[in-house]
């Protein structure tokens, strides 16, 4: 009987795996097919490339956000840190060259992320409020450094390579985004850090009692989230050819939404990068699709809400059906 239960369990798990695998991609295919039917020009290579470019920053932030959320926290500051990294990076870039500028963007992200992690780990402050505070700090710094207005001056090479460059038709931004997702996915699945992230999110006390250095790993998680803000700054700044102090406003919530639509519970301990990827694609392609098929902006706002709610309900029904 025990044996039977076991193989039965495996079967159910396989089936549920397939199901779960299908809901989110199903929604993606549905959106794509309907959009393509209403507006045949949707299905052009041009539009796919556009779509990829547009969702790259979101994808990069979502990768970092997955880590913080799975570890039981969240990082509201990413978008503001992105803006700050972009501003700092471009300022440095104009004086010391492209490479120095890019390194500055990444380091600014890591530094701010480490600061977040240190506050959260050291003082046991709620990540929500800690990163909401640092969000404001990062935006304030970005506004002050930039004097409130976007900085458009930057080396042409930076825009050409990272903003307009492409390899085999894949824009550089997309390559960065996919790279980030793959790296974070590997981290989550195959490394000690990944296991600890799940463990801390699932039961911090248990992780601590098992000898996991919860504090250090928490700092590391937020540092990595900050790093994604830096990477996204490279991609977004070169894409829009401007470093804006108010860049990416609200993108942190979109990234969180994508992560949650991708089935990562905000309570932590659960989730996979593949589903987050689907979540990003769903949210990212919605706006492109609705614009392509000519839905008015107010209707778009409504439609996005309906799709989010429908997607999570469907996903949840699938889960509980298993």
């Amino acid at each position, binding site marked *: *009987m*025990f044996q039977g239960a076991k193989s039965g369990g495996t079967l159910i798990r396989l089936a549920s795996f397939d199901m779960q695998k299908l809901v989110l991609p199903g929604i993606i295919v549905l959106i794509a097919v309907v959009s393509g039917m209403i507006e045949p020009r949707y299905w052009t290579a041009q539009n796919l490339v556009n779509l990829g470019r547009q969702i790259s920053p979101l994808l990069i932030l979502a990768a970092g956000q997955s880590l913080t959320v799975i570890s039981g926290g969240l990082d509201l500051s990413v978008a503001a840190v992105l803006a700050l990294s972009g501003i700092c990076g471009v300022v440095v870039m104009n004086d010391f060259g492209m490479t120095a500028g890019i390194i500055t963007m990444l380091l600014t992200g890591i530094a701010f992320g480490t600061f977040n992690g240190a506050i959260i780990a050291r003082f046991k402050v709620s990540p929500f409020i800690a990163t909401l505070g640092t969000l404001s700090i990062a935006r304030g710094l970005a506004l002050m450094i930039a004097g409130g207005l976007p900085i458009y001056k930057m080396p042409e090479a930076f825009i050409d390579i990272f903003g307009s460059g492409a390899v085999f038709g894949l824009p550089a931004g997309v390559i960065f985004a996919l790279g980030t997702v793959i790296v974070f996915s590997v981290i989550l699945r195959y490394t000690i850090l990944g*296991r600890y992230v799940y463990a801390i999110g699932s*039961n911090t006390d248990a992780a601590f*009692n098992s*000898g*996991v250095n919860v504090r250090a790993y928490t700092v590391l998680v937020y540092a990595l989230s900050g790093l994604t803000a830096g990477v996204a700054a490279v991609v977004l700044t070169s894409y829009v050819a401007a470093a804006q102090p108010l860049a990416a406003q609200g993108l942190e919530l979109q990234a969180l939404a994508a992560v949650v639509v991708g089935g990562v519970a905000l309570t932590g301990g659960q989730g996979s990068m593949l589903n987050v990827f689907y979540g990003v694609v769903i949210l990212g392609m919605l706006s492109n699709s609705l614009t392509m098929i000519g839905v008015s902006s107010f209707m778009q706002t409504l439609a996005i809400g309906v799709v989010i709610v429908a997607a999570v309900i469907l996903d949840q029904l699938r889960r509980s059906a298993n």
Partner: protein
Amino acid sequence: MNPLAADHSAAPRPQPEVVLCASNVSKKFGATQALDEASIQICSGGVHILLGENGAGKSTLAKIFAGVHRPDAGQIEVRGQAVEIGDARTARELGIGIVFQELSLAPHLSVLDNIFLGAEAKRRPFSFLSRGEEARRCRNVLEMLDLDVPLQAPVSSLPIAQKQLVEIAKVLARDAKIIIMDEPTSTLTDREKQALFRVIGVLKQRGVAILYVTHHLQEVELIGDFVSAMVNGRVTQSCPVTPALTELKLVSMLTGREVREFTRAKPRTPSSPLLTIAALKSKSGCKDVALTVGRGEIVGVYGVVGCGRESLGRVLVGLEAHSSGEIHMDGRPYRPRHPAHARGLGMSYLPMDRKQKGILPNRSIRENLNLMNLRDFSTIGGMLSRSRERERSTRVLDELLVRFDSQEKPITTLSGGNQQKVLFGRAIAGAPKVIVMEDPTVGIDIGAKADLYRLMHELRNRGISFLIFSSDLLETLKICDRIYSMYAGRIVREYADPTMNDEAQILSDILGQELHRAAIH
């Protein structure tokens, strides 16, 4: 030194030496002196049993060894070296492993991930896990424990007994030289206990030192080499386990109080049926269950983990709908949609998994106790009267022998056993008709247990019915007016007015065997 332990060994065993020694360790939580200059010595190759009433300080001592708490004063030595165990990692490096009383597993993680959490071969964050090697070692450990679970199953999907075994496996996988087990058998049924005791035998062979906290006095004789008693944060007595050490002596060791042994009296009046279940089937394991519970009667259902007992409980309290069959309460069809509905129909529930399904961790003792009888305290305006609530709490906590500091403190400041008493108090509140209890006295010390049994019978005499699902057969035999044995989703036999003599028959029932009384004895 330990005459009992010599038996199974063929190979010469290393000479026992003191590997873990605590001297005058004190620990205060707020105003509570949890440990008061406690001293204990633990030797390799033996099982040191630690007894004590609820709240005596056993778990606190264990947690100090595990690096969870730091002592306020006193000294700890490992293999003769004075050490400071600042965190869990240090403890592990010293070869100390602990099985926590309140399980400390990450529910979303797989069995494998839990077992190796924090004990990976490599140390750097970005190092890759060696899952193949881990899986191999993991299978070995699970085999030792006779635990058959898929390595990739999330721990949250396991029943609590298996969680407990995973917690034990976790310590075994770390090759700890000093193992502390805090009430490891509290939720295990006989079958699993046997496996655990076998493992403990093997560990002793290997020279591992084991500190074993329990409330089951039988276990002293079964596995113990040495026994200590804790009273009010002090280790008051220590002695080797000898045949001369009777349960009575043990009891007197650990409490100044006289423990009146509990004996069941027959119900005063023959009871009329209150709850009748016929041909009940459920998705999660009842195949064909028929039983009755009388008004003012304590009925037990006993069986191994997975026999359908849990499923029956789930159906009765509204956690699951039955797929066919009939349930009647008070002559009316009974089909609760959820526990709140069941509660409204007079069915109260004390679930087994205290931490997951029982306590409200950051709420006060008072709020935990009075979760379900709040209407008793509402005043005309619909407001709750705090004073009346406090009054009832004081009375009930007293009656349940809860050892507490202030009823406004979070329930998590209570010891495990005392938390359980509070949950017991919650379940009996608010005049239910039937109380479904899973392991009602898990973690509660023997003295308090006897008092709780008496309380249950008092309630029974007032017409309240109990349906008991206990993993402890002795307890079931002791307190139930009637027992059903269960196997593979079916009721096997009914025992009216059970006695200790029915033990063998029940044990064979629940394993699906016909009775071979002689073979067992």
